[in-house]
């Protein structure tokens, strides 16, 4: 039994104030917190329920872009007509994640902050060593079974994978995260493990995510999310790619391309090198496949996950070809 206090926040300020206390955790859909509490990873002292906060679940789409409230559920955002029309990668990433039941519960804010599926992180009874759970305790994953661990952004402290899909699409489309304190570019939001794998985002104590803003662009309108996994549904990505593409008027020269990867990094992984290699060039399958290899520049593999180095560029290439109309 985790003996915790429960409070229901009536305002954002109250939620922020209550969540500042050590051991306090926010709960919205609960799909991550309850799961982690059950496996003994999360042991909140105070659970602050933010589900009744007003004005945090709206989804608005206009010429400037989409603003998605942190409390909007995954299923609602995925089915929003404006999101589907102008940000298909966002809608697809949501629909390819989790299960229908989870998508009906889970919120956008919680989705961004979901924690890794690293087996060792999730099993404190079996593995005391986990720098993410207990800084300085070591890493049980290194030199072990690591089929589902990261190849990019790792450190000798932690190789745990960021498991989400939505954040990958948002990374490609240059989204920003709005909090009670500031607006943060998504590429600045997530932290690689480095020496502090317990710190996963730049959020400070008492800082609450309120919304996600995705700027409108032609690349966002012509975007897709491609997720590859052994099981056709309800599985985290072996590798995934979000791609947005805008062509010049000639219909073949790339004016703007956005590429991000999932299932391979300790954070959602922007592939700027791929973008650079293709911008201003003609869209052509051989060139795309060649450029896609830059997606895994600097990758490092462990036992069982070297296949991701091979797979990820193929996923990137196919996603680019798909939005480029080369099926």
């Amino acid at each position: 039994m985790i003996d915790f206090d429960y409070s229901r926040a009536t305002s954002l300020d109250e939620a922020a104030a209550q969540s500042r206390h050590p051991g306090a955790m926010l709960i919205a859909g609960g799909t991550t917190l309850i799961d982690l509490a059950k496996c003994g990873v999360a042991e909140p002292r105070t659970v602050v329920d933010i589900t009744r906060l007003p004005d945090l679940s709206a989804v608005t789409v206009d010429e400037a872009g989409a603003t998605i409230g942190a409390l909007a559920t995954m299923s609602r955002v995925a089915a929003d007509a404006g999101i589907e029309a102008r940000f298909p990668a966002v809608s697809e990433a949501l629909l390819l994640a989790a299960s229908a039941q989870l998508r009906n519960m889970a919120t956008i804010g919680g989705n961004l902050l979901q924690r890794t599926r690293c087996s060792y992180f999730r099993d404190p009874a079996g593995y005391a060593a986990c720098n993410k759970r207990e800084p300085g305790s070591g890493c049980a994953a290194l030199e072990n079974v690591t089929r589902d661990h990261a190849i990019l952004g790792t450190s000798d402290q932690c190789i745990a994978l960021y498991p989400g899909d939505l954040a990958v699409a948002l990374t490609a489309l240059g989204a920003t995260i709005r909090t009670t304190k500031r607006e943060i570019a998504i590429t600045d939001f997530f932290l690689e493990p480095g020496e502090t794998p317990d710190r996963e985002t730049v959020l400070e104590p008492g800082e609450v995510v309120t919304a996600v803003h995705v700027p409108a662009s032609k690349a966002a309108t012509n975007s897709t999310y491609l997720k590859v996994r052994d099981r056709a549904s309800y599985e985290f990505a072996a590798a995934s790619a979000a791609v947005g593409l805008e062509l010049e008027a000639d219909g073949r020269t790339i004016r703007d391309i956005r590429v991000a990867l999932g299932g391979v990094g300790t954070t959602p992984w922007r592939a700027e090198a791929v973008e650079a290699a293709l911008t201003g060039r003609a869209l052509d399958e051989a060139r795309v496949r060649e450029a896609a290899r830059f997606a895994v520049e600097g990758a490092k593999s462990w036992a069982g996950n070297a296949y991701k180095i091979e797979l990820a560029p193929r996923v990137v290439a196919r996603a680019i070809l798909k939005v480029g109309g080369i099926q």
Partner: protein
Amino acid sequence: MSLTDTPAKYGSAADTEATGPLGRVAIRGDGGLKVRGGATYALEQSVENLLHCVLVQATIGAGRVVSIDKAAAEAAPGVRLVLDAENSLALKPMPDFFGNTPPGDTYVPFARDIRFNGELVAAVVADTLEQARAAAALIEISYEEAPAVPTFADERAGEGRAVDALAKEWGEPDGPHAEAGMRFAATYETPREYNVPIEPHGLIAHWEADDRLTIYEPTQWIDGTARNYAGWFDLPFDNVRVLSPFIGGGFGSKAQGLPHSAAAAIAAKMLGRPVKLAATRPQTFTAYGGRPATRQTLTLSATKDGRLVSLEHDAFSETSVYGTFAETLGVVTKMMYAVPNFRSRQRIVPVNTVLPGPFRAPGKNPSAFALECAMDELAIELGLDPVELRRRNEPDHDFETGKPWSSRRLLQCYDVAGEAFGWAKRNPAPRSMREGRELIGWGMAVGTHPVYAAPGEATVRVLSDGSVEVLSSAIDMGTGTYTILAQTAAEVLGVPVEKVSVKLGDSRLGRAPVAGGSQLANLMTAAVHKTAQAARDELITLGLTDPNSPLRGEANTLLVEGGTIGASRGGAIGIGELLAATGRDHLEVTRDTLPPAERSAEERQRMFSTLAGRGSLPEATVSKHSFCAHFIEVRVDEDFGTVRVARVVTALDAGRLYNPKLAESQFKGGIVMGIGMALLEEGVTDPRNGRILSSNLADYRIATNADVPEITAISVGEPDYDATPLGGKAVGELAIVGVAPAIANAVYHATGKRIRRLPITLESLL
């Protein structure tokens, strides 16, 4: 086209011509209850004064417990008892499957010497589940760790020990085989697989008196489970009542006594209060072993025109360091084809795991994986169509036993499924079919399952309103026992199925064998059929001979039909009227299908609660098996290596189907599970300490709906009265056998890559 909408097309098994209710499509008798939430499962039983038990498990792979600090847990709120090897009641050892209690030692379900990661070390009982969990987390165990050998892939595991009982040899397996122009050898592997029933293991143990124990526990074998508790606690069999009216799947994992069950019953006894224990999902991976990992090397030789000359089979499977479980890897190898020279040997390799156990089609399933992949590879070497190679080696009798088949309609399976699939259009060259970026592959393989026999017992009650009750300790795992037993009684007694109510899953009712080995449907329909006939005969005797019967002297015999009894010509009266006139409110008959013999009550009970019953039956003079042939299309993404099953067409010879709709569900369920086995399921262990890393339903991947395509299941069976009294053969486990090799063969056809190790994951095809 499916089995239910073209029931009579390919044989009379799924007959609409059935004259009575048996053999017809009928909806599940228990379906309404389940849909409405009215089916009460074991852990939902309301028992007053309940305490909650939580398990504490070893976190090392091997070694010993040096000390357990229980003080903090014992002092925690609501805690009633912290149990470990030190203070646990000692039980008698668990009786084996033949009911024999090993001599000497006592049994304590809590370990001091740790043999596997997750072994039960202690348990906490508290007023609430939350309190028990919290206290369990306070227990400090210190270990002296020893090196663990978690899997047989570990070099230190060695070669294990030979299982002589499984060895078989005939002809001259060593040759020389001058006529064999082709020789082929390969090694095939399957990983550890887990049963993962949606209802996890668990129980409520309630001592109603010092020597009377009631157990609510999902079990595939009421009588075996009762015998097990009786053995542990040294009670008369009748003093243990086991209740299991509904079961949320078992797939073999719910037929034997497991340590957590003993722990809950001990706690209940020591505390004098009922105790509930619900295994968590991760605990189902350590409470029960699942299918062990296997490795098989097959060496085939054949003539150039594709007739098998010799087959040599060397098999290995994991067992636990503390017990023996042999996944019988030669069972299909030995009987599937006409092989004049044959040798099969098996070794089991002890490793630090929970003891493996039966999992849907134990032995048959991995056995067919190796054999059916090897046959596909041989066909390719010979330049023969894989169906044609199998046709050329179709045996006219069972080469293992020398006996004739009771029935074997596998050639019809090839014809019917091959045609429905369109196999004739197949280009044999790998990578010859594609659509966009998907490579298309067509593969096939066969499956089989033996037909087992064991005695059963049933009670049939005819009530004054003409309705009928059927009672038995048989169980229904969701497969349809309730439904087909009602159909059987309705058939014999001439009443509509709705007039028959069936009560199952209570050890106070008539005895029944294990719901395993795909035997229960055949055995219990036979028992109910016999009993219902006896009830009908008694009614007729009553009508003809009772001095108060209004029908006395009316005719030489009477007809029981539609709730009435009477002469075939002339007036019939209601059954209730006859019962009332003769001074009864019901008529009750109990019969069993044991061979007639003098038996003590205890011997009789052993016939049902152990495997002794199977041995009591006369040896069959025929070889009895079900058969099937799967034809499967896969799509493989050429960039990603992801395999999706696009189409399955399976023809099955399972004899007479007592209810084609329910049989079809079983067939499809087996195929779905076979898809998971081929492409997804793998128990991943930490190579250092044997901890199961995939002990949840996200990481241990079973097929989702999105992984399952349209499945066409076609019955080609005909009633086989040499196999079973009512003509059915094995259904439940048949269809999983052969799915994985059909998929592996299709993957080869799509990609040109032969994958000999399951599951076939995307990285193996990159």
